[in-house]
């Protein structure tokens, strides 16, 4: 009884904060609503018994990436250009069209996946063996998904080196 209640409350918050992110004028407030959004998503992960994912969501997303957003926003000091006029024309129509396409796609996926049950393969591991979410993620990541993991770390390394080179002062 409690779980659906918590879930729907969190879902409402997630959607609410998401809407606030795209509609707020003040950029710093936008970013802060994004943080709140991520924290609610982390709580949903906890509800799904994926505690490792929840903590990593907070640690990496809310605690790392959004901090970076905040740094940039504060230092760059974004302002609306004085001659900006709200365009209620082409952009809104394109936006609605895109949203409609996304909605159709998601409904199609949901309908098709409800009709066809998902393969039971990978999900057999976790629930029964009493091992926590962390261990399962670890085992999967380093056995079945090793190549994507290594590719991702290589990508991060390249990004880091690139950032350092860009930021280095010319001697």
């Amino acid at each position: 009884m409690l779980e659906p209640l918590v879930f729907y409350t969190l879902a409402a918050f997630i959607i609410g904060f998401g809407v606030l992110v795209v509609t707020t004028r003040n950029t710093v407030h936008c970013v802060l609503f994004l943080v709140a959004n991520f924290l609610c998503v982390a709580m949903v992960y906890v509800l799904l018994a994926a505690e490792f994912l929840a903590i990593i969501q907070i640690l990496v997303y809310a605690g790392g990436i959004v901090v970076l957003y905040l740094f940039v926003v504060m230092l760059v000091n974004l302002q609306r250009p004085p001659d900006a006029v709200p365009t209620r024309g082409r952009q809104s129509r394109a936006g609605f069209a895109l949203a409609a396409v996304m909605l159709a796609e998601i409904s199609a996926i949901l309908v098709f996946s409800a009709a066809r049950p998902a393969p039971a393969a990978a999900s057999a591991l976790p629930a029964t063996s009493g091992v926590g979410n962390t261990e399962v993620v670890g085992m999967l990541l380093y056995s079945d998904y090793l190549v994507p993991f290594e590719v991702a770390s290589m990508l991060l390394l390249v990004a880091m080196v690139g950032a350092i080179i860009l930021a280095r002062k010319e001697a």
Partner: protein
Amino acid sequence: MTSTYLLPLLKIVVILNAVLVSVTFMTLLERKVIAWVQVRLGPMRVGPYGTLQPIADAIKLLLKEDITPVRADKWVFTIAPIVSMVPALIAFAVIPFDREASIFGYRVPLFVADINVGLLYLVSITSIGVYGIILAGYASNSKFPLLAGLRASAQLISYEIAVTMMLVSMVVMSGTLSMVGIVDAQYNAHVWYAFVQPVAFVILFIGGLAETNRAPFDLPEAEQELTGGFHTEYSGMRFALFFLAEYANMIVVSAVATTLFLGGWLRPFPNVAWLGVLDFVPGWIWFLLKTFVFVYVFLWIRATLPRYRYDQLMRLGWKVLIPLGIANLIVTATLKVLL
């Protein structure tokens, strides 16, 4: 029913109260300890030997005028101290003071929650705590607090990496992320991890100093440098919240260091039977004693060492602690696999 809702609630109330009171009196402890190091007496007037000084300070701060700068972002200005304080407090949810204690005949575990990702939870809470400083610097709408806030948060983020790597080393050593599990692992290994992992111990402590903005890494708050840093525009109770958050963070770091390296609630030499005579001292007393030792070392270091300049601080974090941390992690993991 009681055990799922009432008991944790009670424990939360007790722990929060205990933390807030001890944080208030830690201000007095700091002033006294630093005074004694400096051949002075510290506060002596309020109460016997100045022991009621924190109460006077609290009353003063509550009665102060609450000033908000004119063009400051009001909402952000208000929530910044809260965002600083809350992570410091909720970190206590996973800190185990003892495995079990008898309170009025009931066997009560002395921690609010033993989640199986306890250590990871602490790390994520620390990274949320960075927001308080950034928002405080931004919301004051003045260039010095903004720069100071950004500098402080960059410092925190850099040292978080070193600290997290040390925590990971301890996870490798003990095989579990749960705080209670780590203490159990030390009991089973017959040794406190401080003796097995001295490098991790030292790096964790230094990283903890930097994470809590304490000397010698307290440049963001140094009055001599940037006139008050990120909390220049704060007065009254909001200012107090920042300071209480800093002291609460100090206690959290000390408690984590105690749990990970000094065996938590275990008495010295827990497996040596003939020292069982020490068992009349309950585990949580050992825990508090060890935490107190760390807190004292925090204060001692503040009284003694000069302050690092910002670029030297960052250089220490990135070029010294992180490579050492990585090396420690690799060596730990290798030895763990081989042995």
